[in-house]
């Protein structure tokens, strides 16, 4: 006979505030098979768990239902408690009466009734639970880090310094990411390249890091500890082993007027190029879209001048396969582009630029060598208007969120401008100043009080050109919604941070969730901010949400610590939620008829064929068999099986039907 214990959590007021927990406990005590039903203020606390452990021993429970929060939150906690009391952890189930009941319904009879029913459903299920045992799987102690920006660099270095192999994949020709494009960084105004480039070199020279630049993740299969990644190494056109990075090919290339991506269009580059002189690796790539040879079929000047004979014009993309145990996604962000701001004339007037373009103008390694010169005529602008929240916090642009870093970098821009153009005027239009962070508020005050940037609280409605000036029409809400008109020489938009264009397809490759704006989702917003819902895949940096540098670095180190933790043992245990094909005594052997529909449906090729033989070795029949190492437990085969010979442990047909019977 089943002896089930039901434990109802108040969750402080979270559940008890809307659900009559005493009534629920009383009702649950009367369900058939329930021998123990209690409520307590915080079941997950130490005394709460002790209650469960004691009851298991004293009442000889054969199953436990904890009615509390979502199993996605505390199922591991309660299963561990059960295991400590000697009960198989898979004989513990949770009824979600918080997220799915008390938090979403009004206080009242119906809500209490629903809680009772949810518990009854789980009681019926847990009666049919079987003891299960975790599956041990080996761990490949190599991490794959996607993205070579500051987050990816930090994660790679931390994992490698913990003694594990790292494969760092970067899409562009050099690592460094957006941080390499920045001039100075807030709130210290130290030069971005000075703090970043040593790290980049460290990555390149680290014996445990394999760096693949100009490469992308093609696909990822497998599961935690045992992923198989296919990486596309795009044809660089240059033999990396031979090239010394002398740069002669770049000097000789006849195509010299291609807008440089690294300089955000502010500067020009050649067709064979390195993004910037500090690139790691310092080896050029050939941009086939603009290269004369690929357009006209002749040129080959680079090949002629290369003393090392490193040019490979006929090189093809190469796909390599690597086995990894964990993945850190650190693919970064993008900014909103010109087509989204017709009212500001961005894309139409050359002197309306975005924040990244301003960074390049202000950077000592930029196209103007750090002099603030406006793009249209190269003159030094006397008046610059900075517009914060260009797109951010704007439902009309589909971006209700705050981009987080713009308040700070706008203050920095105003400062940098004032430091370089002493008599210049800097105006900043803003909605609110969000300067939460160590020394951030002080930094903004410095921009206003010491450097004299004029802050106007209000939005800009329109920008148009008149007599060589950009007329910025806005409003100052602190002066009672007074219209403001500023004749500016240059306008800098702090355009919103958005997810990378291919973030969605990356999420699909990694099988992780993403939010409506295509930022990758963490497993829990507070307690598991670097993990994803897919075990073994971690997040770092702005691919999760807009972040500044310290935050991206902190998260990257967090992800690295998770990876190092995962790699600390040679095998890990996996939940035994897998499919099994039934085996019966002779003469039936199994109800499986060998149709192998399951084989076709299985996304993991986990279905194998097993021959059942008689004593003489004659094959009686061929039945399906599940490889427990490959099965991920989706249960697609179970739904397809015509004879119900295959079943999913933890979600068996019997369990689910009985859940329904309890409705």
């Amino acid at each position, binding site marked *: 006979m089943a002896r089930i214990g039901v434990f109802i959590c108040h969750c402080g007021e979270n559940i008890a505030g809307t659900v009559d927990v005493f009534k629920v406990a009383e009702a649950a005590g009367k369900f058939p098979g329930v021998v123990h039903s209690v409520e307590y203020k915080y079941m997950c606390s130490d005394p709460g768990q002790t209650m469960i452990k004691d009851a298991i021993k004293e009442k000889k429970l054969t199953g436990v239902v904890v009615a509390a929060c*979502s199993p996605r939150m505390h199922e591991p906690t309660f299963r561990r408690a059960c295991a400590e009391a000697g009960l198989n952890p898979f004989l513990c189930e949770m009824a979600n009466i*918080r997220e799915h009941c008390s938090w979403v319904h009004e206080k009242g009879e119906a809500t209490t009734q629903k809680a009772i029913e949810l518990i009854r459903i789980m009681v019926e299920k847990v009666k049919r639970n079987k003891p299960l045992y975790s599956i041990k799987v080996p761990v490949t102690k190599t991490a794959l880090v996607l993205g070579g920006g500051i987050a990816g660099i930090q994660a790679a270095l931390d994992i490698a310094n913990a003694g594990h192999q790292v494969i760092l994949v970067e899409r562009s020709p050099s690592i460094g990411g957006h941080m390499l494009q920045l001039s100075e960084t807030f709130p210290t105004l130290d030069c971005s390249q000075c703090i970043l480039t040593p790290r980049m070199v460290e990555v390149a020279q680290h014996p445990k890091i394999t760096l693949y630049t100009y490469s992308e993740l093609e696909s990822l299969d497998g599961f935690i500890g045992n992923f198989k990644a296919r990486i596309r190494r795009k044809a660089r056109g240059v033999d990396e082993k031979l090239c010394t990075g002398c740069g002669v090919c770049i000097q000789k290339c006849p195509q010299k007027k291609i807008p440089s991506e690294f300089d955000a269009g502010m500067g020009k580059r050649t067709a064979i190029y390195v993004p910037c002189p500090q690139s790691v690796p310092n080896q050029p790539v050939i941009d086939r879209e603009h290269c004369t040879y690929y357009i006209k079929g002749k040129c080959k000047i680079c090949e002629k001048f290369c003393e090392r004979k490193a040019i490979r014009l006929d090189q093809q993309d190469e796909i390599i396969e690597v086995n990894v145990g964990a993945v850190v996604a650190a693919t970064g962000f993008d900014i909103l582009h010109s087509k989204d701001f017709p009212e500001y004339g961005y894309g139409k007037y050359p002197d309306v630029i975005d924040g990244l373009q301003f960074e390049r103008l202000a950077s000592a390694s930029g196209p103007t060598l750090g002099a603030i010169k406006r793009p249209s005529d190269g003159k030094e602008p006397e008046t610059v208007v900075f517009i914060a929240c260009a797109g951010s916090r704007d439902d009309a642009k589909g971006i209700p969120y705050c981009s987080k870093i713009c308040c700070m970098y706008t203050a920095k821009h105003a400062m940098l401008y004032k430091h370089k153009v002493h008599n210049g005027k800097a105006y900043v239009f803003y909605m609110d100043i969000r300067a939460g962070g160590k020394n951030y508020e002080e930094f903004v005050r410095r921009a206003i009080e010491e450097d004299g940037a004029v802050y106007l609280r209000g939005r800009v409605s329109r920008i148009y050109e008149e007599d060589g000036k950009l007329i910025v029409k806005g409003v100052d809400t602190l002066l009672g919604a007074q219209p403001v008109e500023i004749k500016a020489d240059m306008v800098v938009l702090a355009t919103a941070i958005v997810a990378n264009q291919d973030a969605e397809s990356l*999420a699909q490759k990694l099988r992780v969730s*993403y939010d409506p704006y295509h930022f990758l989702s963490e497993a829990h917003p507070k307690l598991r901010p670097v993990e994803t819902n897919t075990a073994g895949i971690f997040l770092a940096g702005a691919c999760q949400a807009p972040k500044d540098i310290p935050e991206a670095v902190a998260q990257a180190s967090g992800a690295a610590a998770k990876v190092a933790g995962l790699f600390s043992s040679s095998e890990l245990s996996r939940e035994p939620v897998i499919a099994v094909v039934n085996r019966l005594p002779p003469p039936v052997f199994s109800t499986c008829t060998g149709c192998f529909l399951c084989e076709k449906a299985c996304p*993991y090729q986990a279905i194998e064929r097993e021959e059942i033989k008689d004593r003489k070795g004659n094959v009686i029949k061929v039945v399906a068999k599940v490889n427990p190492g490959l099965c991920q437990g989706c*249960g*697609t085969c179970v739904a397809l099986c015509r004879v119900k010979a295959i079943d999913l442990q933890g979600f068996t047909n019997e369990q689910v039907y009985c859940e329904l019977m309890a*409705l």
Partner: protein
Amino acid sequence: MSEFEPKIVAFVCNWCTYAGADLTGTSRIKYASNVRMIRLPCTGRIDFMLLLKAFEQGADGIIVSGCHPNDCHYTAGNFHARRRWMMFRSLLDFLGIDTRRIHFAWVSAAEGAKWAEFVNSVTDQVRKLGPNEQYQKLSQAGVE
């Protein structure tokens, strides 16, 4: 009739819709309390006999919901579910069961508000349809 509160059973996948409904909870978005959720690893696990069982057990309406196409945690389970669903729906229709009682949706882990809206709209629709006596009558047809 105005007092009729339908019983809705939702079959949801663990990775998208169940997590989405958790988000509805954490966001404290209120919705109709008629729904009872059955958690399964994937919509691909949903054998549609389960839906018939739910009707037999007196469900007035049924929801099946999982990850958006291409977002399946198990790569392709939701495609299996979708294909099976299309077949099953036309079968129900052929049998004379009101297909307005069964609803399919894609609700991702980030769509807490969508889940609340969806449950409310299904509950409203089923409430208007009244109790699912039809299924009970159908299953007793021919039984004297």
